[in-house]
């Protein structure tokens, strides 16, 4: 890979609880190159949203480094952090909750520009700003005639277009997208997914694309990381991961996802996992997936597998693929 745009290493985000600690993110490493899409998948509570928020410094990480174009965001404060973060913007899941209902579409899209302009981080005249907002609206498929409308006058899909225009306003190199299409109806979801692809081709954008829908991630991602209980269980190029999943959790996840074809569904063999996703405040001994794993061995209870290379670019944290330490 060329020089990475974003390099995350040893990222941890822990929240203190009344009893113990919630390990939302517990040692995550990944890289994203320019123009690349890393898909981050996993079920609720696995830490995928927390990872994005820790990368964006919306929650300050408990440990680890977040290098954006070589600068460690964790070490930066105040104006320096704002300046460094310009290359990385966020798109949120809920287009109803993430847009201020009292601001017009035009103001919402101009807000990032205004923030950087008033801090002297961006030289942009008023007419230039107006022109950029109009161009952005046009680019994401919203008529700039709608600039004076309020969020409630737009549908869910149109609101997500506003969210995208807002994220693109500062011309970032990387978007952190936290479930950007999961609140949308399928016919609208396809429109927005296509828009993500078009924008990437046009501006050379890189994405960290978080989703729980494996088919959506397969469509957008060049590489995929599967998270479970705050850790990455498996990471591989997208085609490889879907063709040859190595971790039992990835295998179960793929087999559980429904396919819209009755003939395929009727003949499919499902791995039905027992139990629920455990809470992340457990003691960090053993494999986090051991409780639900149908290929569990004794070692899985006592040692924690590390993410290791199992093939070219294919990493997995599972003792089925790596010998445990201290065994012959």
């Amino acid at each position, binding site marked *: 890979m060329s020089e990475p745009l974003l390099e995350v290493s040893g990222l941890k985000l822990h929240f203190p609880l009344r009893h113990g600690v919630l390990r939302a993110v517990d040692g995550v490493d990944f890289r994203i190159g320019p123009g690349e899409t890393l898909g981050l998948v996993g*079920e*609720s509570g696995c830490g995928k949203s927390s990872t994005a928020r820790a990368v964006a410094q919306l929650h300050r990480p408990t440990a680890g480094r977040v290098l954006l174009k070589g600068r460690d965001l964790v070490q930066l404060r105040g104006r320096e952090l704002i300046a460094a973060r310009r290359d990385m913007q966020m798109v949120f899941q809920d287009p109803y909750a993430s847009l201020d209902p009292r601001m017009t579409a035009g103001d919402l899209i101009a807000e990032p520009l205004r923030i950087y302009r008033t801090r002297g981080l961006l030289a942009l005249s008023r007419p230039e700003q107006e022109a950029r907002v109009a161009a952005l609206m046009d680019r994401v498929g919203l008529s700039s005639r709608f600039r004076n409308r309020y969020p409630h006058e737009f*549908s*869910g*899909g*149109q609101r997500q277009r506003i969210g995208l225009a807002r994220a693109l306003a500062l011309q970032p190199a990387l978007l952190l997208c936290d479930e950007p299409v999961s609140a949308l*109806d*399928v*016919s*609208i*979801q*396809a*429109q927005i*997914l*296509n828009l993500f*692809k078009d924008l990437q081709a046009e501006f050379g954008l890189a994405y960290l694309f978080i989703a*729980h829908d*494996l*088919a*959506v991630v*397969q*469509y957008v991602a060049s590489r995929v990381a599967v998270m479970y209980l705050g850790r990455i269980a498996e990471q591989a190029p*997208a*085609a490889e991961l*879907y063709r040859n999943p190595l971790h039992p959790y990835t295998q*179960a*996840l*793929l*087999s*559980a*996802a*429904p*396919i*819209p*074809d*009755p*003939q*395929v*569904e*009727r003949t499919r063999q*499902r791995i*039905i*996992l*027992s139990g*629920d*996703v455990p809470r992340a405040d457990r003691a960090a001994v053993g494999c986090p997936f051991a409780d639900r794993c149908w290929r569990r061995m004794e070692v899985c209870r006592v040692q924690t597998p590390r993410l290791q290379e199992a093939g070219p670019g294919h990493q997995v944290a599972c003792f089925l693929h790596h010998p445990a330490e201290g065994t012959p």
Partner: protein
Amino acid sequence: MAGDILLEVQDLNIRFDTAEGVVKAVDGVSFRLHRGETLGLVGESGSGKSVTSLSLLNLVPPPGRVSGRILFHGRDILAMPGNELRRLRGDRIAMIFQDPMTSLNPFLRIGTQLAETLRLHQGLGRRAARDRAVELLRACGIQDAARRIDQYPHQFSGGMRQRVMIAQGLSCGPEILIADEPTSALDVTIQAQILELVKELTRSLGTAVILITHDLGVVAGTCDSLCVMYAGRIVERGPTTAVFQDPLHPYTQGLIASVPRLDRPGTGRLAAIPGQPPSGIGLPECCPFHPRCDRAMEPCRARRPPETGAGHSAACWLYPEAP
């Protein structure tokens, strides 16, 4: 399957008067449910699928106005007096909802909520109802049911709460189970567990199921037949295999094509349906899909298409005669 009709909905209309005008949430819907059948009602938000399911137990909230007939064993549910309706609800027709957190009472123990239905409908005593409730929880895959029954809903995970809802729904051995997006709030691995459970239990009890969902994958795996809804109308219906293999209505075709598929890694673009679904206000008497349809013709803008075809049918001017 023909002849053994359990439920028949005839020309159902549901209107809501709002400040902006009359919303036609459901606009002339008719369908039949046969004994032991699993029928899917598929559609996107605002298509009228949920409010249709509510009307089956006469639960549409005011200011909704419901007209038409819903015949269950020859009796019209919409015309039933209150006491007869109460005997029906939860006993012969049961319903489970999307979010088990808001449909279970957070102040009552799980056992109390399960026993309530059993005591009311089956006349069981306190002791017997409790024993039966433990049995039901166990049948729904809740381990350590005798202890769990004294816990409160917040002590259960989302998947476990949905199991409690299913136990409650099936507790009186209903003839029909209405499930409104029962797995949409759940993770895929949990969704697979719950769908498997519903399939097993309803098959062994011979219960017919109406499954309301937006997820085509869920329909493909669970339903015998389906109705596709758009803007308050059924635009296509038929056996699940036939509809997926040979979708007739351009909306159904678009819907199937717009879903990315796990088993078909594609590099190209998704076939999105352009535009937005209509709001349901001031819908003219034409095809509601024509503004988004790439095959729209003159009649589509002028008149409402009739539903043509036997078994597998569509309401579309492409098929003025049976396809």
